[in-house]
């Protein structure tokens, strides 16, 4: 049947066509829709889970693959850092059933902390990597990835980028999901228990094997060359290949080489593809990986070829590529104009800047504001974390002083505390992040006697990545209702003596809780509990009594809710946006804001 699928959907259904038996992952833009798609199609016989983090997901999947089952793990690129501990070792041990690790890169970066390149990770772990350029390719290539994984008994990386993950195409997919049959786990401690001796032997074998894989991949269909006689060559990979094709529409006098498998580098393919070329220009996002491989190759084989790309400064190192960037560089390279005629926008008027903000009615706004109010005039540091609540950094809240990686806020608050005695350290962490990598940090604080206040912003979902369930929500991806892991009990269990739970939309109580905690020594925790407004039904609407409003704009200045707008006559509330959270009501000094009559059920 034909389906209109996002690249991530294509990966999901491609894996199903490959009969995948187990899929685990942790949400992260741009990878989250893979598991979400799987859950929407009939998948009886498939074990599907959001794991607590990427390391857990990879280990769960590895053991399934040891058992001969086909397993897939999904994450964003920084998730691979978390999963790198098991992955490095797994690369030595290998697998039995096919195992594919999807790590979605995010050039730009558009929704990430780093511009790291998963292809480098593949090289680092010495395992193959596949790099699709379109959703259509992703559907086919993910199936190939399983084949290669099984053929060489190695985990395989699959690296789409944001523009492939979030592009849609119409794809012919298998109608029925048939899970693979597999043998089950067979004990063999010489194979499945990693020891220095095993790693030594396997290291040698892996390097030999990679030479064979490189040979094998040299005839892989997605490594291709067009117009092989031309003197000028272009090499492209991933979505950059699509950009180059868009630019070259109709132009056939340039040699276009596409590399879909950066590691193990398909050397014989490339040697053949470059034969007779004088120059080669490389288009790839993130790192100059292929460019470096070609340089190595030309050194070893003494090729008389000029290699151009990022390393000579022609192609930018940072940010994503685009048709426009590629067209500009190609114009220089080919000496012909390939761009499109454009409207002149050099005289464009100044445009409003629109940084992302917390939704109207988002409970995080109340949590941040309560802490801000309680600590007014006192020295305090606010360590943020990864999630919607990173947006607490925006004005007027301005409540995020540091943000590094998942779970880091909790531990960084401790570091700040140990060397800045005169200030109170706060850590803000979301519920999903708390489960993913927050708990160990809290244990560290208790054990090492930090003075800090942990604020768990518990909105009962993983909001930023599209509202996935987690251990605290009582639902899992098998569609089952399960026991909720109770954050308050967890905190008490690991030794936090002061734990308070408050409603962040109750400003007075929240401020009091913060003040109480700030007067105590040791590790204290406040759980600000209120559901994400994007999934909860709004409680009603608020409105401004224009007779009473003195137009001081305190509500706007203090909390910056997007539903509040200033007019000459006074503040007004956008009824389409307001959720009736009531926070502004509690801030107005003249009680001009009230519930809209009849809006509360």
């Amino acid at each position, binding site marked *: 049947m034909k389906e209109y699928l996002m690249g991530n959907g294509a990966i999901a259904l491609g894996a199903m066509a490959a009969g995948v038996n187990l899929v685990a992952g942790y949400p992260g833009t741009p990878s989250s829709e893979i598991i979400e798609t799987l859950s929407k199609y009939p998948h009886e016989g498939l074990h599907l889970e959001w794991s607590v983090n990427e390391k857990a997901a990879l280990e769960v999947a590895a053991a399934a693959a040891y058992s001969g089952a086909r397993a897939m793990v999904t994450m964003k690129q920084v998730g691979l850092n978390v999963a790198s501990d098991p992955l490095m070792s797994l690369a030595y041990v290998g697998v039995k059933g096919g195992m594919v690790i999807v790590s979605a890169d995010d050039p730009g970066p558009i929704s990430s902390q780093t511009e790291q390149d998963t292809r480098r990770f593949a090289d680092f772990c010495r395992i193959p990597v596949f790099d699709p350029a379109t959703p259509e390719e992703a559907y086919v290539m993910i199936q190939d990835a399983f084949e290669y994984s099984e053929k060489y008994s190695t985990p395989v990386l699959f690296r789409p980028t944001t523009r492939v993950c*979030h592009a*849609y*195409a119409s794809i012919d997919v298998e109608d029925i999901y048939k899970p693979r049959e597999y043998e089950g786990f067979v004990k063999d401690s010489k194979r499945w228990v990693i020891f220095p001796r095993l790693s030594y032997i396997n290291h040698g074998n892996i390097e030999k094997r990679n030479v064979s894989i490189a040979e094998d991949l040299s005839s892989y269909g997605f490594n291709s060359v067009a117009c092989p006689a031309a003197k000028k060559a272009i090499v492209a990979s991933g979505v950059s290949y699509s950009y180059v094709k868009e630019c070259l529409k109709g132009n056939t006098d340039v040699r276009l080489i596409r590399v879909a498998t950066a590691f193990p580098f398909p050397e014989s393919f490339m040697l053949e593809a470059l034969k007779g070329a004088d120059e080669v220009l490389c288009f790839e996002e993130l790192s100059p990986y292929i460019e470096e491989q070609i340089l190595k190759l030309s050194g070893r084989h003494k090729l008389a070829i000029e290699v151009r790309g990022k390393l000579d400064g022609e192609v930018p190192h940072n940010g994503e590529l685009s048709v426009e960037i590629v067209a500009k560089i190609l114009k220089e390279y080919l000496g012909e104009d390939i761009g499109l005629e454009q*409207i002149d926008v050099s005289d464009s*008027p100044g445009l409003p800047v629109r940084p*992302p903000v917390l939704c109207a009615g988002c409970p995080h706004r109340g949590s941040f504001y309560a802490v801000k109010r309680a600590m007014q005039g006192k020295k305090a540091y606010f360590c943020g974390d990864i999630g919607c609540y990173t947006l607490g950094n925006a004005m007027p809240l301005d409540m995020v002083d540091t943000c590094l990686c998942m779970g880091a806020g909790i531990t960084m608050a401790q570091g700040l505390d140990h060397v800045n005695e005169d200030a109170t350290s706060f850590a803000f962490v979301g519920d999903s992040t708390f489960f993913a990598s927050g708990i160990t940090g809290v244990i560290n604080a208790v054990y090492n006697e930090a003075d800090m206040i942990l604020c768990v912003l518990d909105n009962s979902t993983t909001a*930023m990545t599209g509202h996935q369930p987690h251990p605290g929500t009582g639902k899992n991806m098998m569609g089952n209702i399960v026991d909720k892991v109770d954050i308050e009990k967890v905190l008490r269990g690991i030794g936090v003596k002061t734990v308070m739970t408050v409603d962040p939309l109750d400003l007075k109580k929240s401020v009091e809780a913060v003040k109480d905690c700030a007067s105590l020594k040791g590790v204290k925790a406040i759980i600000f509990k209120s559901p994400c407004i994007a999934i909860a039904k709004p409680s009603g609407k608020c409105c401004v009594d224009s007779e009473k409003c003195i137009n001081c704009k305190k509500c*706007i200045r203090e909390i*910056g809710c997007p539903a509040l*707008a200033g007019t000459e006559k006074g503040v007004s509330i956008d009824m389409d946006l307001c959720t009736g959270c009531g926070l502004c009501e509690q801030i107005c000094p003249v009680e001009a804001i009230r519930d809209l009559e009849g809006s509360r059920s």
Partner: protein
Amino acid sequence: MNKDILICGVGGQGTVLASKIIASAAMEEKKTVHSAETIGMAQRGGSVTSHVRIGESYSPLIPHGSADLLLAFEPGEAVRNIKYLKKDGVVIVNTVPTDPVGASSEDNSYDASVMTDYLLKKCKCIFVNSEEVCKEFGSSKFFNIVILGIATGADVLGVSFDTVQDQLTKRIPQKFLEINKKAFMKGYEIGSNAQI
């Protein structure tokens, strides 16, 4: 024939549904379609775009200077994105601005007429006031369907009235279908009478 359509607005305005309807309508007419969406942080009130490409194409994003049609849910966003438009392309734009959220509204609000004047200088435009046209439906949330109606009425969408209407029936829950169809018809009339 190839047709590139860029939809732009501010996170939360319903641009994604509009792009899905266009894409599936084009597929219904047996055309090749590709599209791409903004997903992630920007959905929280930032600038968002959807790119719909009907016909053979390679890049998931529309190249600058290639869009036949720009559906702009916000005047400032229209200006931000006209670089995508072809020289003889058409812009259908909502004239009601969405002020960026900020500390105090005075220094952040902007004059929508500066934007609309600029657009008028640069390309063929159809202006609509979302608040006025949506008044009878009780919420500006129906603007995404109205704008599809306008594009269909002005015959610049590249898909027919019937296919778009079929898609509404397929994609919109029964409960809201009637009102959405009205919104579509309202747009269709505006589009049919528009001079471009």
